[in-house]
């Protein structure tokens, strides 16, 4: 378990992280989301003991970063932003070096395992600077998971990769994230949505949202927008809102001579779909399509981070 209490970090006059509080439970996969410069990397760097907080406190497994740094570092596997590597080393030498410092006794078999897991078989004895970006990222992963850490922290693990590599890396994250506490920072929503079961959105050093993917969506979705395609006379459509209370028609447009597209809105707490359907049935119109428009996390993210985090 990781607990952040009133965590604050100043760089000179700039406050990068501002009284951040949250807890991450064992086994959680946390997406740490925010625009560039929001304080994600700084927060992660403090958890990994790379930077010390200006004020506030971090506890990892009930150990305080102030006096148990070495023990905490042993628990954490960390892939820093931009994936720094000793590029003049071969993949094997690099992993061997990490294993030596981490004091992994059965390093030979462990390195072999990790190489297998990260798909590095073909490049084990190549210098890292000759590898493609996707492979370099895999080397970074191999480094982070070499000691089989309980906590895995990945700072923008897919930035700069092409779409195919992103899919591969995401698969790898899913695979590696089993049985681990995982923190993934990103400014890309789909990524976090695809992998994480909890999301924290941070903006200008402050947490602006915290919850599961569904919670965040529903919290910002108090109105449901329903989109219908019907074969019906266009001038009779308004009858829907006239007959069913608390619904309003946002727009009506004809798609062809017979089909009409209608957008209806109602309170999310008060589902009107059944009533709408029976009304259509009673009118003997043909329903071609009916779907809810999900407010995307994208919209949540934008509304939280662009208007200065006002809810």
């Amino acid at each position, binding site marked *: 378990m990781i607990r952040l209490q009133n965590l604050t970090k100043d760089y000179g006059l700039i406050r990068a992280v501002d009284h951040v509080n949250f807890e991450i439970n064992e086994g959680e996969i946390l997406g740490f989301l925010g625009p560039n410069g929001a304080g994600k990397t700084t927060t992660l760097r403090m958890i990994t003991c790379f930077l010390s907080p200006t004020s506030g406190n971090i506890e990892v497994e009930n150990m305080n970063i102030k006096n148990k740094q070495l023990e905490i*570092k042993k628990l954490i596997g960390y892939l820093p932003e931009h994936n720094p590597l000793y590029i*003049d080393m071969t993949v094997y030498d690099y992993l061997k070096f990490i294993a030596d410092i981490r004091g992994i006794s059965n390093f030979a078999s462990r390195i072999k395992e990790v190489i297998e897991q990260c798909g590095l078989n073909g490049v084990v004895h190549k210098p890292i600077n000759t590898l493609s970006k996707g492979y370099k990222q895999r080397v970074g992963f191999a480094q982070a998971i070499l000691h089989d850490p309980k906590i895995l922290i990945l700072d923008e693990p897919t930035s700069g990769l092409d779409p195919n590599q992103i899919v591969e890396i995401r698969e790898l994250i899913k695979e590696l994230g089993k049985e681990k506490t995982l923190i993934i920072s990103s400014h890309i929503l789909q990524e976090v949505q695809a992998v994480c079961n909890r999301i924290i959105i941070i903006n200008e050093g402050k947490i602006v949202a915290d919850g599961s993917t569904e919670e965040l969506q529903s919290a910002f979705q108090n109105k449901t927008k329903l989109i219908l395609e019907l074969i019906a006379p266009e001038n009779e459509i308004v009858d829907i809102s006239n007959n069913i209370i608390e619904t309003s028609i946002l727009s009506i447009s004809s798609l062809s001579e017979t089909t009409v597209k209608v957008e209806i809105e109602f309170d999310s707490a008060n589902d009107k779909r059944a009533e709408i359907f029976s009304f259509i049935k009673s009118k003997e119109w043909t329903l071609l399509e009916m779907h809810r428009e999900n407010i995307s996390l994208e919209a949540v993210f934008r509304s939280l981070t662009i208007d200065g985090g006002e809810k």
Partner: protein
Amino acid sequence: MNLALTITKKEIKSYFNSPAAYIVLVIFLLLSGWFFASPLFINNQANLRTLFSIIPLLYLFFIPAITMGLLSREKNTGTIEILATLPIKDTQIIMGKFWASVSLIGVGLLLTLVHFITILLLGTNVDFGAIFCGYIGLMFLGAVYSSIGIFASSITSNQIVALIISFFIIFFLFVIKFFLMFVPDFMVGIFQFLSIDYHFSNIIRGVIDTRNIIYFVSLIVLFLKLAQASLENRNWK
């Protein structure tokens, strides 16, 4: 294995994986050989005095060059973030780098033993004690300069800046002796004690005094501690 030694091993590997170490060693050997051999028959003495007086000058150029990248490159490429988040103490990182630099200097000095062999073959009455002390002195001097180089490397992410800073610190310690005539009498003692050459010349005369050793060791400790403080601070970005 001690973690500092793991760092040392890595640094030595990276020295010898690139042509840099070979170039440095070859030029070091050529220059020291030239300065040693050219006045050898004029002096007509079977000792390594000329070698011992020229190597400190060569150090002034070579040691900043071999230490400049030790920490600044890690900062520049960001690998310091990997290193500093591994379960290793900052002291061990600094010591590992320090021993790597000292080892490379040791290799360089080992190669100059060819001059010693020349003396053995040509001369009689070779003063082994003085030569042994000379090498001890050179190792200490190399260690002091290494610690200065590592300090310079720790305060910047730019290798060239590190090179210039360490060059000037070493240069300052090197030239203090020339300022002795300008300082008031009561301060001469202090300035003389600060001068690295004063202590070094004692040693190559064949006298290893605890005062000289304390001077060298305290300089090493001072600069390594400063380097450690700067590494812990991480405000270099």
